[in-house]
């Protein structure tokens, strides 16, 4: 491009372009002056009128809480639902500016609904007096309360009743630990900046684990109201987006039966599908009233639950560790057979006592079991047989195979403070001998006592591995999460966390002897159901601590699966201080099997 052609005005010659530029500058200046005039008009001449309009600006922002996502069981039955509930709220900007007048209003409200006056003052003090966002004061108002507030509406400026979706449970204690409770975000949670004051947040269990999905996106409305607080017009509205739906692996029917069977007892039940690790039921008792935690729980009720010596908030399936007792004999057997230190034909004569140096270890059966082989040792849970077996197998091998079965490591349920359990491990010297380890500890370990500790969920995983030929599944609680418009947003196809490399012969032997425990006059006969081949192992774990339980100090275990061929279900029952596993835990497992295999059993009973 050659700009020479354009040329330019010669110096000293008139420059018409310059005049045009100046003309445009004048137009812009005039426009600026017009704006100044308009501002003079708006701000100075009409300023007072607009000031008034600004003071009277009564726009309310009305948040519309998104309903939390619903949790379903594996068959599509809801585990928890939502229902509309009334919430009492204060709008700081519409409360009286004068502190005295304001306290009169709050006082009136306090006496009307029997809310502590201090609570109301606290709620107001926490937010700016200019805020037009409602501050929730009390959730779950009764119809009576709502009527009272409406009746006194004119005397209660700044007080409103909102309708919000609230959690509704099939019954008060249903699956309390599994689902977890939902409460207003605590001060600490608010600090994270992810929640607004008054947001409902899952605090434990699945509600906490999946909070991000379950929480929807709140909508809101901007409305103009008159001096009486009545809506004049909707200015703006954003639809709330409900939370995602969660399809769990739980079978509500099984969960209910399991909870019912544990009524009045402390302990835990885990029901698992050994084919994929699905958790069909997860029960921990004593439970708590989950619906009382939602909304505004009064401080005393909260303290009562927190300080309850029975620890109702504890999820005993994963957060409590227990000695496994005779259940551990399965590990000893597997270790011994696999390593060749035990054979099925080993025999021991049980006199009810076992001597090691100066120590005497007793069998649970005072008079002894007589001549016992490995199969009978498991069937009758003969302690003396296993004292011998344990010494033959050795602590390191027992520990190795306990670890192989997943004991001593968390199951990975991402469920908050899962306990890892404990498998004592003798430190080995360079010569390969256990150090600072007494042979008595080996003896104790061989019947699942001493330092050995497990959680019911770990036992379920181990039992599932015995049932399915060695696959360690990560327990699965959630199948998938779906959003109405987007379909599946999260899915879990199940994951295998390990494999127990035992020879098929060992598994076959274990299944055979566990079948005998229930069906051939063993300790688990109380779980027997004609027509259904259940395999199981009882455990009676001695505890150190004292308690006033009438049934004694022992925790009762029963770990079982069925049917023995192609196992479909693993059931673990633990009754704290319930006495013998065979008498306290096995019958509970029987009830659960009965429910699950109801049709099959009925078919067999009627001669199918």
């Amino acid at each position, binding site marked *: 491009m050659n700009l020479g052609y354009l040329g330019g005005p010669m110096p000293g010659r008139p420059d018409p372009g310059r005049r045009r530029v100046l003309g445009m500058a004048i137009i812009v200046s005039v426009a600026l002056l017009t704006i100044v005039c308009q501002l003079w008009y708006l*701000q100075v001449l009409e300023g007072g009128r607009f000031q008034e309009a600004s003071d009277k600006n009564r726009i309310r922002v009305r948040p519309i809480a998104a309903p939390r996502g619903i949790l379903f069981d594996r068959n599509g039955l809801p585990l928890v639902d939502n229902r509309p509930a009334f919430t009492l709220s204060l709008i700081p900007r519409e409360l009286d500016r004068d502190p005295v007048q304001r306290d009169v209003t709050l006082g009136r409200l306090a006496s009307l609904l029997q809310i502590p006056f201090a609570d109301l003052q606290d709620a107001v003090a926490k937010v700016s007096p200019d805020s037009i966002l409602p501050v929730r004061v009390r959730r779950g108002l009764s119809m009576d309360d709502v009527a009272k507030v409406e009746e006194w509406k004119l005397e209660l400026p700044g007080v409103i009743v909102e309708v919000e979706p609230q959690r509704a449970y099939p019954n008060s204690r249903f699956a309390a630990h599994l689902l977890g409770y939902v409460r207003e975000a605590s001060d600490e949670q608010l600090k994270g900046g992810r929640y607004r004051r008054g947001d409902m947040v899952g605090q434990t269990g699945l509600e906490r684990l999946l909070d991000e999905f379950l929480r929807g996106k709140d909508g809101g409305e901007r409305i103009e109201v008159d001096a009486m607080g009545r809506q004049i017009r909707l200015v703006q509205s954003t639809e709330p987006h409900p939370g995602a739906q969660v399809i769990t692996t739980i079978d509500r029917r099984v969960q209910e039966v399991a909870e019912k069977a544990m009524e009045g007892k402390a302990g835990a039940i885990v029901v698992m599908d050994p084919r994929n690790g699905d958790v069909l039921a997860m029960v921990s008792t004593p439970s708590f009233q989950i619906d009382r935690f939602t909304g505004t729980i009064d401080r005393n009720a909260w303290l009562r639950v927190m300080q309850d010596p029975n620890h109702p908030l504890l999820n005993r399936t994963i957060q409590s560790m227990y000695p496994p007792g005779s259940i551990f004999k399965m590990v000893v057997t597997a270790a011994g057979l696999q390593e060749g230190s035990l054979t099925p034909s080993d025999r021991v004569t049980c006199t009810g006592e076992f001597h090691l140096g100066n120590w005497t270890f007793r069998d649970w059966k005072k008079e002894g079991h007589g001549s016992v082989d490995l199969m009978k040792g498991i069937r009758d849970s003969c302690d003396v047989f296993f004292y011998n077996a344990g010494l033959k197998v050795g602590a390191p091998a027992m520990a190795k195979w306990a670890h192989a079965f997943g004991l001593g490591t968390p199951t990975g349920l991402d469920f908050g403070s899962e306990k890892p359990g404990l498998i004592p491990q003798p430190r080995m010297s360079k010569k390969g001998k256990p150090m600072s380890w007494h042979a008595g500890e080996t003896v104790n370990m061989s019947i699942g006592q001493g330092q050995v500790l497990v959680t019911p969920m770990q036992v379920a995983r181990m039992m599932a591995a015995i049932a399915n030929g060695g696959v360690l599944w990560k327990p699965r609680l959630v199948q998938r999460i779906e959003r109405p418009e987007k379909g599946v947003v999260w899915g879990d196809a199940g994951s295998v966390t390990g494999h127990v490399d035992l020879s098929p012969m060992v598994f076959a032997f274990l299944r055979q002897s566990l079948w005998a425990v229930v069906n051939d006059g063993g300790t688990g006969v109380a779980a027997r159901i004609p027509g259904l081949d259940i395999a199981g192992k009882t455990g009676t774990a001695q505890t150190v601590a004292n308690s006033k339980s009438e049934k004694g100090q022992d925790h009762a275990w029963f770990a079982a699966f069925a049917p023995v061929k192609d196992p479909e279900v693993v059931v673990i029952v633990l009754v704290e201080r319930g006495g013998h596993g065979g008498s306290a835990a096995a019958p509970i497992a029987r009830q659960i099997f009965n429910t699950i295999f109801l049709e099959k059993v009925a078919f067999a009973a009627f001669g199918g």
Partner: protein
Amino acid sequence: MVGIDRRLLQNVDWPLLGATVCLVALSATTLATLSVGRAGTGVALRQIAWFGLGLIALLVVASIDYRRLVRIAPGLYLMGLIVLLTLFVFGRTVSGARRWLLVGPLSVQPSELFKLCFVLMVVWLLSTRWAQPVGKAVLVVAAPLALVPAVLIVKQPDLGTALLLFPVLIALLIAAGMRLRILGGLVLMGLAAAPLAWIALKDYQRDRILVFLDPLRDPLGRAYNVIQAKIAIGSGQLLGKGVAGATQSRLAFLPERHTDFIFAVFAETWGFVGCLVLLTCYALLLLRGFDIAASTREPVGRLVALGVTALVSTQVLVNVGMVTGLIPVVGIPLPFMSYGGSSMVVSMMALGLLLSVRMRQFQ
């Protein structure tokens, strides 16, 4: 050349830069007052960071001889058009509008940058040998230069930015010596075509015009923004309500208060007196721009300076005009005041062009 020699530095327009710094300072304080007691004081800091980035862009642009830029204008213009087209494919949708392009972590508004390409392109056209003297034939070529991108930008939809192109085009034609009678005819034609345009407008855009003509038509619906902005400005009165008292702004009655309606926030907080200070800054800036255009005898430099000044002037006048209720609402940010990286950086580059002309006018 990119290097700056001493003589160039002596001709830096300090009043122009001073006015700009004042405006950015006012912008940052206003944004900061909006977030008092809220999370996200970061907005003000980010605005300052944008200013910093803009300063670098300004230096780069000012150090390049504007004639070089005009020479490559057709290439820039074509690239701009292509980017505007790709927006329909890769654009990021924010509240229904595809105006943004994701570049790494930033979302950039290409239509902002396109405005400068457009100015340079028109200057290139008007300074070709073919275009002399500037007459009707030039118009036939220049009109599509504005219309094609305008249609693309309207489709985003961003009516405000699209409409900006026309006053800038007209201002450049005037300055290049087109006969005013031809331009008068053009304006008349435009008025005749207005009914057609009315049909092409989207519902909400028609609503805005109707609401402007009669704000009480639907006081809480479409007119909500206009009425709330007027209340905010008016209630500021002579001296303003101060930071704490500016309820209209702080209680979120005002929509888009960080961006297009920031003038209302400022007016409520600082009142008529504050507005005078703000408008004085703008007047200083714009008149300096016209002064550069008028005092530059080199014709390309004059056109560049004028085009850029016309661009910024139109934005300021349209934005403040709409917020104060003088003209219908079209979404245009207030240069240097409204929060936004693209707007800030591009406005600074526009200043860079002005400085580039100023520094070289006595060469």
